[in-house]
Structure formats: C-alpha cells, structure tokens
C-alpha cells in the first residue's frame, strides 16, 4: 500500500510536471486588445435526440428535429485545420513527442470509455451508461462497465470488452526478464514496462479485470483510485495486434508512430475519423469513418457520422499566415496563439471566434521558505493588494467577454465553469486590490514604510520579492507588470526576473528559496482534481511553494479515497482552503494566488462552413474533438 501510494504520488506529480511545462511553454504571447463574442453570447441550438429528449449543442445555425439528417444541405469535402505544430510522430507517449498536438489529432481517431466535455466533466463515450463503483468492504473497489451495443471499429470488427482488456494488458505488459516480484524491489520499475506510457497510475493497482460478456466487464482496484474515469481515455484494437500483450505492446510502440501497422495498413479507429496519410511537413490527412458509432458528447448536435468527408491538418508555422489562410478560405479552422491574432476575426461576421473557459489556470505561487513570505501577514498582504478584477478586465474581458468571472479565479481544485467551484479567495476578501488592508497587515508585522514607499523589516530588510515565469510570454509579462503596479501601491516591491521556458523549468522544483520567491505559471485542472494535490504535498518533488502540512496530506489522502463524487467535491474544496486561505492552516496556508483561467479558443470560417463545432477545452482536446458537427457550406 505504501509502495502503491508513493508510486502513485510520484507518477501523478511527474505527469503534472509535464502538463505544467506543456501549459507554461505553450508559446502564447497573448494580449487582450481584441473583442469577441463570448460563449454565452453564442446561440445554442436545441435538437431532439432519438429518445425524444432534447440536446443542446454548439451554434450550428439549424434546429434538428427527430429524424432529420444533420448533414443535409452541407457540402462535400474535407475540413481543413491549419496548425503550427506538426507532431514528431503519432505515438502519444513517445518521450520525443509533443503531447498536445498529437493528442489533438488523436481525439478524432480513438474514443475512450469516458470523454471530457467542454465544461470539463466526464461523459460516457464508449460506455452505454455511467459505470457503477462498488466498495467491496475489504479495501478493494470494483467498477462494473457496460459498453454500448453494436460498437465496431472502422474496419468493421466488433469493439468489445476484450479490446479494453487488451488495452490494459498491453499497458501493463512487462519485459521478458521481468516479473511482478521484481517490480516491488526495482528502484525504477517503469523501465521494465514495454508500452511507452507516461503514467500508469490507476492501472498499476488493478487486481482483477474480468470480461463477462462482449459488452460487460469489471475492474477491481486494490484501493479506491479517484481518477478511475480518466483511465482508458483511448481503447486500442486488439484484433490487429498480437495476442501476447508483451508482443502487442512492442508492436503498438512501432505502429503508433506513423499510425501504420506492420502490414502497411493504418490502425483501425473508433472515432469519427480514420487515418489516411501523412505528408510530412505539409499535412496529415484523415478520412471519415463511416462505421463510426456516433457521439454521446453533450457538446455535439450531430450524433451520427461526420458530415465532412475528412480532415486535412495542414502545418502552417507562421500564425499570421494561418490567419491569412483562414481569410483566404484555404483553411476552415485555426486554433493558435497569440490572442491578438483573433482581434480582427472576432469582429468580422465571416468568422466565429469560439472560446471556452478551459481548465488551464494562471497563478502566483508563494515560496514560504523565503524570509518575507514565511510571514502570514506578508502573504495575506499580497492577497489583499492583488486586484484580480483589474487583471481580468484588462487582459481577458476585451476578447472573451464575460466568459470568466470578473472577480478572477479563487480556487485551485475546481475551475469557475465547473459546478463544484467555490470562490474561496473572494470569500476571504482577497484579490480586490485593497492596498490599505495590505499596508495595515505589513505594519502589524513590524514593517515600516521606507522613503520610497517600500516597506522594510527591522531584521529581514526591504520587502522586495522576485517573480519569475517563462520569458517571451507576452500575456504573463503584462500580468506581471499589472500586478507589480498593484503591489507597489501597497509598498511591496516586485522585481520581475523571467527566464527562457526550458531554463526556467530546469531549475530544481522543490521550493529552493534562492531560486523561487514568487513563481508564475499555469497548472491544468480537469474533471478529477486530485492530481493537483501533488504540488502541495510535503516533500513533493513538484512542490515549488515549500508547503508542508501533515494535516493537509492526511486530508488529501482522505479526499482521494472518497467514492461519492459529491462528497469528494466537498472534500477537495476543503483541501483548497488550506492553500488559498489561512482558514484551516493559519501558519503556512495561503501559498497560492490563483489569477484566472486562460480560455482556449479557435476561429472558423462562416463562409466555408455552414456549421461549426463547440470549442474544446484546453486540456487534451483540440479543434476536431467535436468534428462530427462541422459542416461545409453547401
């Protein structure tokens, strides 16, 4: 159990570290000079589902009645998505790969047991219904899954519980000279696995996988794993790989790189698209999967096969050229940075700029090992002096309208667009730019204002704090300058010291006060927020804040063990209070100042398309996650 827990924590944290780097190094240099329609302003269409219920989807400009063909009236042809990043290969877990762009491409190829909605919630994707989790009473938990009837792969083969089992077996397949016993003592057990996957958390505690029928199977874990719905985000086709999991895992490592089997055929898919070809440096081509099982996402209107006959992902490195491609109708969709690229598009009736709040969130992290930041009064002064509303109004509202809360983000576990969200920092009175409150706190802690207005402590010296982030990120740099001015009004001197992305994250990530005083970057939330905990745990290698609290650690363990989702949500909210307020932890709490979510957005042509699709979340989805809804102009 201890081994399991430490490994689980380690993998969670390291996965988080990667996500952090991916989010932080996204290359965005956004400014918020533009205006656009917010998601709330866009018309949603209501359509009748086969069972007579209604479905709300993206702005398609049509209302679909029962029996109507969603694709009727649309033109034939491929959807063209111009993007700057070409994946090195299509193996999602290749260390030399770029995770995001590969994941985005694969979103249209493989479905999983659960998908994630634009509102960052799980929905049954290949499953017929929500799985049922049972507490076996002996510490183990079993989830029972039921697949949708009649699921098939793009080549017509049945997609069954055996495929899910095959996926599990391949992920967990060990090398020929390795036994499970070796795993217990091996200092680096991950290197013994064959299939390249960054994180086996949850898979590694499965004690039994039983397929009871083609559509029914159950999985038993040695202990409850809160992120169980995030597992099997892709299910692989067993019928095209070797029956021996170890051989299959090696085959998959090769086949996924070019999405081509040893036979030369493309890997069959379960998503709305099939891989067709890849002209490196030019474009990747997908073709419609006419055997697609249909989408159950609440974000889509079309529950059948895609309307477009395929997708061309064209690689246009220059973002100005992407915009020109869109305007010239040579591309139909772009999803790029920086924000100002969308300024003109947002006010042009020929284009739709479609944003979602997304799970990526910006924050200032306070290193409590610093002599000033170790004082609760200083951290609280920073929280009071910070004016989140000004940050949102200046940098985000002009382009995204009221998509984000005007008061900024006040929670690090739940995002503002998730139903579990509570604005803890707002409720604590933080983030309002109250310089007087900040000054009062500092003076109460013995600080005295100097001749230049900056406070000094009789023993700890001048209240000057360094803030760092990845240099060249225009949005962050503007945020820093805004907040720097807010802090100056409260007598706190902020010195901006940014470094290039790789260099910034190459420094030790364990809260070294000589390196970190205040750090600014993005974390990525999700439907299961438990992974966020790792950045706050005592001694975690992924904890830049120097935070250490045994009560927090115990509470985190408790939250991760709660099966009931509503109860777990409450628990994670309680956990958040430790780090965003001084409530549960009056001495070392309040280490994070969440600023705001960073919306994801894309633009599509209203002239080339007669219907678009809802914007994806910023985590792992991309423009073609809801590709079934795109319809070319007739």
């Amino acid at each position: 159990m201890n081994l399991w827990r430490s490994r689980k924590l380690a993998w969670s944290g390291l996965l988080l570290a990667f996500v952090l780097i991916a989010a932080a190094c996204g290359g965005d240099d956004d400014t918020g000079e533009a205006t656009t329609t917010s998601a709330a302003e866009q018309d949603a269409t209501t359509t009748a589902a086969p069972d007579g219920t209604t479905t709300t989807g993206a702005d398609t400009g049509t209302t679909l009645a029962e029996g109507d063909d969603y694709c009727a009236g649309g033109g034939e042809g491929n959807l063209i998505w111009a993007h700057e990043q070409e994946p090195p290969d299509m193996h999602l877990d290749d260390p030399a790969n770029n995770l995001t762009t590969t994941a985005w491409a694969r979103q249209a190829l493989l479905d999983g047991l659960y998908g994630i909605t634009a509102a960052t919630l799980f929905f049954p994707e290949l499953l017929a219904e929500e799985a049922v989790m049972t507490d076996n009473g002996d510490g183990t938990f079993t989830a029972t899954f039921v697949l949708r009837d009649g699921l098939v792969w793009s080549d017509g083969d049945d997609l069954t519980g055996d495929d899910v089992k095959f996926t599990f077996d391949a992920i967990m397949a060990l090398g020929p000279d390795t036994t499970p016993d070796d795993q217990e003592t091996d200092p680096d057990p991950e290197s013994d696995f064959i299939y390249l996957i960054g994180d086996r958390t949850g898979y590694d505690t499965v004690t039994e996988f039983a397929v009871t029928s083609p559509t029914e199977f159950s999985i038993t874990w040695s202990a409850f794993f809160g992120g169980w719905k995030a597992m099997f985000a892709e299910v692989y086709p067993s019928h095209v790989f070797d029956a021996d999991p170890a051989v299959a895992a090696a085959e998959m490592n090769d086949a996924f790189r070019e999405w081509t089997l040893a036979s030369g055929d493309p890997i069959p898919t379960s998503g709305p698209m099939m891989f067709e070809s890849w002209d490196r440096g030019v474009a990747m081509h997908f073709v419609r999967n006419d055997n697609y099982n249909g989408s159950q996402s609440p974000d889509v209107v079309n529950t059948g096969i895609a309307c477009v006959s395929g997708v061309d992902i064209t690689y246009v490195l220059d973002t100005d050229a992407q915009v020109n491609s869109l305007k010239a109708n040579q591309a139909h969709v772009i999803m790029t940075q920086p924000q100002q690229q969308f300024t003109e598009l947002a006010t042009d009736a020929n284009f739709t700029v479609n944003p979602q709040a997304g799970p990526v969130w910006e924050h200032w992290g306070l290193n409590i090992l610093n002599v000033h930041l170790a004082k609760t009064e200083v951290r609280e002064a920073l929280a009071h002096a910070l004016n989140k509303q000004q940050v949102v109004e200046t940098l985000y509202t002009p382009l995204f309208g009221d998509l984000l809360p005007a008061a900024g983000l006040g929670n690090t576990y739940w995002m503002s667009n998730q139903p579990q969200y509570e604005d803890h920092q707002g409720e604590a009175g933080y983030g309002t730019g109250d310089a007087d409150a900040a000054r009062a706190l500092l003076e109460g802690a013995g600080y005295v204002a100097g001749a230049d207005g900056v406070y000094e402590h009789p023993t700890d010296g001048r209240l000057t704090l360094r803030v760092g982030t990845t240099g060249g990120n225009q949005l962050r740099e503007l945020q820093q300058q805004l907040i720097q001015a807010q802090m100056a009004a409260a007598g706190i001197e902020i010195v901006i010291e940014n470094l290039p992305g790789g260099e910034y994250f190459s420094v030790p990530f364990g809260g070294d006060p000589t390196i970190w005083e205040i750090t600014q970057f993005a974390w990525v939330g999700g439907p299961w927020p438990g992974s966020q905990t790792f950045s706050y745990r005592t001694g975690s290698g992924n904890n830049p804040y120097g935070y250490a609290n045994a009560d927090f650690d115990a509470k985190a363990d408790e939250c991760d063990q709660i099966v009931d989702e509503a109860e777990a949500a409450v628990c994670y909210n309680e956990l958040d209070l430790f780090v965003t307020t001084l409530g549960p932890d009056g001495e070392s709490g309040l280490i994070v100042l969440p600023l705001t979510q960073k919306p994801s957005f894309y633009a599509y042509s209203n002239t080339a398309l007669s219907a678009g699709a809802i914007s994806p979340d910023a985590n792992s989805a991309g423009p073609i996650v809801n590709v079934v809804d795109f319809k070319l102009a007739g």
Partner: protein
Amino acid sequence: MDDAATSPGSLIVLAYTVRRLFSSIVLLFIGTGVVFYLTSISSNPELLLATCPPTRCGPEFRAEMTEMYQLDKSIPQRYVSWLGDAVQGDLGTAVRDGRRPVTEVLGERLPKTLMLAIPAFVLTGLIAVGLGVYSAVRQYSFGDNTLTAFSFVGISMPTFFFGLLLQVFWGVWWQDWTGTRPFYVTGYHDANFMDIVASLTLPVTTLMLVTVAGEARFGRASMLEVINSEYIRTARAKGVSERKVIFRHALRNALIPLVTIWALDFAALLSGSVITETVFAWPGIGSYFLRSITNYDLDPVMAIMVFTAAITIAFNMIADVMYGVLDPRVRYD
C-alpha cells in the same frame, strides 16, 4: 581542343581551382567546427532532458539521447565523431521528425527548396538584368528614377512583411473583389501542374523581391560603368547600332561582376529561405531549419547549417573561378 585543354592558361585555372578547393575544405572544416560548437551550446539536448520529467523521459530514453548526442563526451570529441559520420553520409537522426535519418528528411525537403530556388533564381536574373540595362541606358529618366525608388523599397522591405502582404492581397482582397483566388497563400499543393504553379507563385515572388531589387541596382551600376568606357564610345563612333552596342558589347561585360552576386544568391536560395518558406508553409529546408531549432532537434540544425556553409563556400569558389574565366583581365597567380 587538346591544345586548349593543356594551354598554360587552362593549367593556371586548374591549379587555382585545386588551390581554392583545398582552402575551401579547410574553411569548411573550421566553419563546421564553429557551427557545431554554437549549435551544441544553443540547441542543447541536455536541456530537453533536464526539463522532461522522468515519467516521460525514462532511463532508456535518457540513455538513448546520451548515446545519440554523445552527451558524456566533450564538445570537441563530439565534433570529431560527428565529422567522421558526416563524411560517410551519416548526418544523424531527426528525433523530432519520426526519428528518421536526417539525410532522408533533407532528401524530401531539398527538392521542394529547389522548386522555389530555381525559378526564383532564373526569373530574378532575367528581370534584374533587364531592369539594370533599362535604368543604365535611360539614366536619370523618369523610368530610371521610378525603378530606383522601387529598388530601394524592395531592398528595404522585410521579406516576411512582403510575403504576408502578398497573401492578403491575393488571398483576401483579390478574392473579395473578383470572387477568385488565383494562388495558394500557404502550403505545397501538387494535385496537378497548375496547382504547383499556384503554390509556387507567391513564395517565388517574395524570394525575388529583395534579390531583384539588389541585383537590378548592381546591374545598373555595372552597366553604367561599361557604357561609359572607351571601347563602347569607339563602337558608337564606328556607327555600330545602339542595340548591338548595348546587347553585344556592353551587356556581356557588364554581366561579369553579376556572376559573383548570382553565385552567392543561388547559394542562399539553395540553403532554403527560412522566412519565406515559413510564411508560406513551404516544406523546404528553410522552414525545417526553423522547426528543428524550436524543437531542439540538434542533428537537423547542424546538418542544415553545414549544408549552408558548404553551399556558400562552394558557390563562392565557383564565382571566383568563373570570374577569371569570363574576364581575361583577371589573373590567378
């Protein structure tokens, strides 16, 4: 024929060529060393490993990278090893491009760069010479002044700006006005010959802009120098027609200084235009170079840098040799 081949003049040219070849090799050796050092300290794979969490970059991957980039050796040791492989045709692995051999990737990309470079080079030469002759013959005329103004605009205009301007003009404005889009604004399209032409037009035009402007100015100056020389005055005094004076007597000699410029321009075009290929999403060497830099893909960066250095040195040498062949006044000794 045999006499000509073994004449003292030919032998002198041959000796000069061999001498230049050796000095070029030395220069290339030094150049690659400098490039390798700079590339090693800027596109550092150690940084990639340092920022990659162990879950993704496990021991096997780290060992693979260490072996691939010889991170356990000093930079001079790595250079010697790289050089040994390079002379045998092994330019390394494009880790961020499907782990394919760099030579394979360059083999795909170079023809695309040539598709831009050759038409751009030929058209540039023809247009620049034409404009240079016109400006020189009609010195200080309205046409000459207009061309001079346009030349300076062309020389001054950033390539990326002109490229984007062409995209907006032909892809957006022209489409708004006429409902048609005669050219592709990005990408390489090869469904048929006209598709290729439509793909090539805007990037080739962009590539031509700066070189035409520069070469036209150079051509004008060279032509002016020639048409004001005594032998041209003599030809005119003898009653030779102006057309013959310009195109038979003046132009031939005026072109000689342009040979050096052409050689260097062609070398630059062959090495791939980073900006033009990037703006137009052209899958040539230039855009690949930028992509490799941003991806910390060391071997392709090194290979392209060395390729560029080699091409530049080679064409410099060709220009020098050609200069002497075309102009008998130039002596090699």
